């Protein structure tokens, strides 16, 4: 009935490792990140509101104007990503650059560009949905569950 010594952990070693890991882990500038995310995300949303306002002036109802607005923003996000400018927005704004729909376009274009060398089908074609894929899968799954719940409760 020998005890396997290899599985014995030395609590002191663990503690020393954790101290070490905490020391070398890069310090996060949380406050500044938050401020930039707020500013960049707010600015993009404000721009979106401007586009929406323009479409409303062209005779779209305020609900219908959301659709052409997202098309314009997606197009701009794709273009800026292609030019290499959107990366800078994300680098500074973090989720402020990634969470708006322009960031969704960025998440579609960036990996597709990067894996271009792997071919049109398995490179660009497959990588277009690297991030958009999971977003659509789980977004759609949740929306479906909500729809079922509303249907069963008769609130839809």
């Amino acid at each position: 009935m020998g005890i396997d010594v290899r599985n014995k952990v030395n609590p002191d070693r663990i503690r020393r490792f954790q101290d070490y890991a905490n020391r070398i882990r890069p310090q996060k500038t949380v406050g500044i990140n938050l401020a930039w995310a707020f500013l960049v995300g707010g600015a993009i949303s404000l721009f979106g509101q401007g586009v929406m306002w323009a479409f409303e002036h062209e005779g779209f109802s305020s609900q219908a104007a959301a659709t052409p607005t997202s098309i314009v923003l997606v197009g701009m996000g794709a273009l800026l990503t292609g030019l290499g400018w959107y990366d800078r927005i994300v680098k500074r704004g973090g989720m402020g650059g990634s969470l708006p729909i322009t960031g969704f376009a960025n998440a579609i274009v960036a990996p597709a560009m990067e894996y271009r060398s792997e071919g049109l089908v398995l490179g660009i074609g497959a990588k277009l949905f690297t991030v958009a894929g999971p977003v659509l899968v789980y977004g759609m799954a949740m929306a479906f569950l909500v729809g079922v719940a509303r249907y069963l409760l008769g609130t839809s």
Partner: protein
Amino acid sequence: MTFVWAFVIGGLMCALAQWVLDNSTLTPAHVLVLFIVLGALASGFGVYQKLVQFSGAGATVPLPGFGYTLVEGIDQAVKQKGVLGLFSGGFTAAASGIKAALIFGLAAALIFRPKA
């Protein structure tokens, strides 16, 4: 006034996402998935609709607004077609956004070369 709220609400949502990113081990992709799911959930409880009403693009431009579009699309389709709408609704409402992303994304990936 909608313009001010668009900036504030859009900014706050992004700051919240940034806070989650900085205070967890999640990757940006995980945070995006989390936020579209939260958006769909909030729409289910009727909360997100109110946010859209007073902040306009501040609620529809960030990714949770995409979840809202899906939920609303399913809702309208169910009203028109019954149970079948549960399956046809979401993508119909989001079609233009997804298609735009696909077409523009493909075009950009074909035209531009990555820098560096």
